[in-house]
Structures are given as structure tokens and as C-alpha cells.
């Protein structure tokens, strides 16, 4: 390390906090330019929330980080910073758990949710409580030099600043989270915070105007026809997996594999709460009467179906299959076709560790039947769509 670099690092003990902020930004950007509507598991939501806090809020605590380092013995500087950051992030983690829980609700995935919370933030910023909380972000707590008291004081110092920061910015951060950690919303939120935190006198009027503008943007997005057009575009059905090879259902259980199509949405199934998934069993034909079939997804071989009720996709009665196969004037010979909404079953399967997004296994279990049966199936297809879509 060159002396010049060492001196720079000594003068700026907050350097690795800046690196953490940068890494948080890079990770969030790498996760994609996400928008409202994406849903993630709770733990992933919490992880992204904490990344967002690091990316957006930690830059405004750098002066406090420096205070924590400079008020500590030289050998303890980095430990003091770590303690401060742990204390600072703890209150935000509590809010993050609530936010992640709220994100499991569908209403938080609409543009109306961030619009509402940006509006709440604008109202909150005009209150005395917010002004007091903002002042609390500049607190300075005495730190013991050594021992457990030093660690305790660093945690308490960080916690004090973290609580004030939460009290100051909670609606703004929830709004950003409800945009699906949109880069535009996060950059806007940071700009608002910068107006409040960096100048010697907080520029609260400008910050309020910027927050109101963010609320306005999301109100417009919520009601704009182009937003509807975007939603319609997104509602076009996409084939997620398909097996076009005809096969026959007999008296014994039949299992087929549905390979995922190119650009299949199956790997992202739990990130798309607005999407629905439909399993189509098409062109069922038979010349003789046949029993009904139960359809299961990813049913393990030779398993007891009673124990796998959560794999159940739907029930296929064969009433009228002969007539649908023979056809008659005015009716084509297309056979029977069934379409099941398997969204919930797929989401449950996708959250299991053995989930393989590359292919889906579909099992046809016949009900008790004494005669012979042979039902030909033309195609099985899994389609991603939205309710009311095409």
C-alpha cells in the first residue's frame, strides 16, 4: 500500500462503508431493473430491503460512521464502525420484516401502493415529528474506549441514528420497496434524503416538492392508458412448457414430462404474482367410454396420491368423449379439452428445494374402472397468462 493511499484510508475510515453502499447498488442493479408487480419470497424481500437500506440510507450516515471511528482507539476503528452499522441496520431490519410481509399482499404490487406511500411521505415531511427525527439523525453519543462498554456504545450509537432514520424516512422507504426497488424510485428517494440530510439547513421545501413529484409520477403510472397498454402487453399468454407428442392414457397411471420451452417463465414463477398458470390437456379422444382421470403435477413415482393432495391439478371427467371424438354435424371432431388453473399448485412446488424449472412432470391417475380403456391425448401445454388476459 502506498503512503498516499494509506493516508487517504486513514483520513476516511468510512471507506469500506462506501464500498458496501456501492456493492449494494451493484447487487440491486444486477437483480434487474425491476418494477411493480414482482413478488419474491419473504427472505428474498428482506434481503433486497436491507440492500436498499444500505444503498440509499447508509450514504447519509457516513459522517456518523466517521465520528464513531474517530472517537475510538486506533486499533478499534473498524470494529467501532461494524458495531455502529449493526446498530444502525437493526431498526431497519424490523421495518424490513414488516415490508416483506406486506409485499406478500397483491395490493403492494400495484402502482397505487408507491403512489400512496410517497403521498404519505410528503404529508409526514410536513410534521414536527419528522423534523425532530431528522434532527436525531445528527446525534452524537459518547463512546467508551475499550471493552464491552465500547461495543455496547457503538451499537447504541448506531441504533440511535437508525431509529431516528427510520422515524424520518419510513414512508419514503416503504414507497421505494413497493415499487419493487425501482431504480428510479430509489434514486428519487435518495435525492429527497440528500436535500434533507446534507445541507447545513435542510432544504425541506425542495424535498417535499420532490416527494410530491414522485407521488405524482406513480399516480400517473397507476391511471395512465399506457400503463394499461403495458399491462395488456404483459397479459399475452406465454407457453411455459409443452409436450406435443400424442400419447395414450390407459387403466394404469400415466406419467409424461413437459419440457420447459425456450425463455420459459418457470424459473421466475414466484417472482410474478400477477401471472396465472394454466395447464391445458387438449384433444382427448376415445371410441369407448372411459373413466375419469385425476391430474397431478410432479407426483413422485409409485407414491400414494392421498399424501400428495397439494400436487393435484384437476379432475377430467370423460363424459361425452365418444361423441366429441366422432363428432356430428355442427361439431368438430376435436375431442375433449380441459384447462386447469394450476397457479397455486405450481407456486407451492416452486418453493420446494427439489423444484426443477427445466421440466414439469404430469401424472394421469385413472379412477377405478372395470373395462378396458384407451384415451388418446393430443397435447399437454402449460401457459402463463393473467386473469382476464388473452
Amino acid at each position, binding site marked *: 500500500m502506498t503512503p498516499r493511499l494509506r493516508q487517504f484510508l486513514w483520513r476516511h475510515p468510512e471507506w469500506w462503508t462506501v464500498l458496501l453502499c456501492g456493492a449494494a447498488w451493484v447487487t440491486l442493479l444486477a437483480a434487474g431493473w425491476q418494477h411493480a408487480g414482482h413478488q419474491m419470497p419473504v427472505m428474498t424481500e428482506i434481503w433486497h430491503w436491507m440492500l436498499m437500506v444500505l444503498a440509499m440510507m447508509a450514504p447519509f450516515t457516513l459522517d456518523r460512521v466517521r465520528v464513531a471511528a474517530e472517537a475510538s482507539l486506533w486499533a478499534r476503528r473498524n470494529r467501532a464502525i461494524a458495531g455502529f452499522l449493526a446498530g444502525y441496520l437493526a431498526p431497519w431490519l424490523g421495518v424490513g420484516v414488516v415490508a416483506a410481509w406486506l409485499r406478500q399482499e397483491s395490493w403492494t404490487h400495484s402502482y397505487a401502493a408507491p403512489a400512496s406511500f410517497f403521498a404519505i411521505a410528503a404529508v409526514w415531511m410536513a410534521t414536527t415529528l419528522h423534523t425532530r427525527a431528522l434532527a436525531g439523525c445528527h446525534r452524537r453519543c459518547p463512546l467508551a*474506549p475499550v471493552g464491552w462498554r465500547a461495543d455496547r456504545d457503538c451499537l447504541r450509537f448506531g441504533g440511535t441514528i437508525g431509529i431516528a432514520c427510520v422515524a424520518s424516512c419510513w414512508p419514503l422507504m416503504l414507497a421505494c420497496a413497493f415499487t419493487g426497488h425501482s431504480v428510479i424510485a430509489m434514486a428519487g428517494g435518495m435525492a429527497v434524503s440528500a436535500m434533507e440530510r446534507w445541507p447545513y439547513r435542510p432544504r425541506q421545501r425542495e424535498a417535499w416538492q420532490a416527494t410530491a413529484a414522485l407521488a405524482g409520477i406513480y399516480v400517473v403510472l397507476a391511471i395512465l392508458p399506457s400503463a394499461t397498454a403495458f399491462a395488456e402487453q404483459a397479459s399475452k399468454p406465454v407457453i411455459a412448457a409443452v409436450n406435443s407428442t400424442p400419447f395414450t392414457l390407459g387403466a394404469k397411471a400415466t406419467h409424461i414430462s413437459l419440457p420447459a420451452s425456450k425463455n420459459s417463465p418457470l424459473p421466475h414463477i414466484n417472482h410474478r404474482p400477477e401471472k396465472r398458470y394454466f395447464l391445458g390437456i387438449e384433444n382427448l379422444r376415445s371410441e369407448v367410454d372411459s373413466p375419469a382421470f385425476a391430474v397431478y403435477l410432479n407426483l413422485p413415482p409409485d407414491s400414494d396420491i392421498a399424501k400428495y393432495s397439494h400436487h393435484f391439478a384437476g379432475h377430467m371427467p370423460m363424459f361425452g368423449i365418444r361423441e366429441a371424438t366422432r363428432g356430428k354435424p355442427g361439431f368438430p371432431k376435436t375431442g375433449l379439452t380441459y384447462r386447469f388453473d394450476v397457479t397455486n399448485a405450481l407456486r407451492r412446488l416452486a418453493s420446494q428445494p427439489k423444484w426443477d424449472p427445466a421440466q414439469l412432470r404430469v401424472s394421469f391417475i385413472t379412477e377405478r374402472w372395470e373395462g378396458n380403456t384407451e384415451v388418446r391425448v393430443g397435447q399437454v401445454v402449460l401457459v402463463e397468462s393473467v386473469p382476464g388476459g388473452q
Partner: protein
Amino acid sequence: MQSPHDPNQPPIPEMVGATSEPFLIREAPTFISFDVHAPTGPALIRDDRTPRTAHLGIENITGKVDVPPFAVYLNLPEGSDPARHPFRYAGSLPMFGIVEMSQVRGHHPANGLTYRFDVTNVLLRLAVLKEWDARTLRVTFIPEPWPQAAEAQVGRVSLYFQ
């Protein structure tokens, strides 16, 4: 180790000792002491031949009532008359505005008052007289006469080498 000190920039301060808990100062003299640690950072390896300075920080002084100014002495023998030890005098703590600085008002975060004294000469003199062992520092707060009860809290007393 090669010195990273850039002569064009002020030296980097290094905290070498501080009190562990906040304490009260009242209308009677208050004595506190804390350990002084050997510098291990920039204060240790400076070789730019500029004299090292020492600064005493009296941090986060808060109070609910007005209090008198306090005089601060270093290594003052207990029970001795401060007037007979002027070379131990570090500085004076005016308490004007302490009540206001202890409350969250507007954009003020209630950090209280903080003072920092250059005690380089005081410590040098004490060291020459062998009245300071560089391991412990004793700080005494002497209030000026005050007609009523007074009490303020000091968050921390710290010593920096620079």
C-alpha cells in the same frame, strides 16, 4: 514504517484515551481519571518533525438547568488550591446555552456542548516535572461560584494526539 503524513494536510488525530461512562459535574469540584493508551496509528509514526499536539475533549455536556462555568485542570492533586497550580490549567467551560443545547429544537439534535482544548504545553510541563506518567490522566472540574444548585452531565472526556 514509512510515514503516510502529507505535510500539506493537517495531521490525523488519534484518540488515545477516554472516560467509559458519562458523569455529573456539580457545584463541588469533580475529579475523574482515565487510562491513556500508547498511540498505535498516525500519532505514533509521524516523522515530519512537526511537534505532536495533544487535545483534551470535553464532549456532550448536557443539563436541565443553568450551571456556572467550570475550569478544567489536569492532574491537580486532590484537595489542593487550583490557584497555586496555574500550569495545570487546561481551559474554561462556558455553559452559556447548555439548556437549549440539551433539547431537540428545530434542527438541533440535543448533542449538548462540546469543547476541545490544546493541552500540549500542560502535558509537556507535567511530564518534565514528572507529574504525569503518560498512562493515566486525571481531570478536575472546578466550578465558579454559583448561587444555587447546579448539575450537568459530561458525556465523555477524551484525549487526542495529533
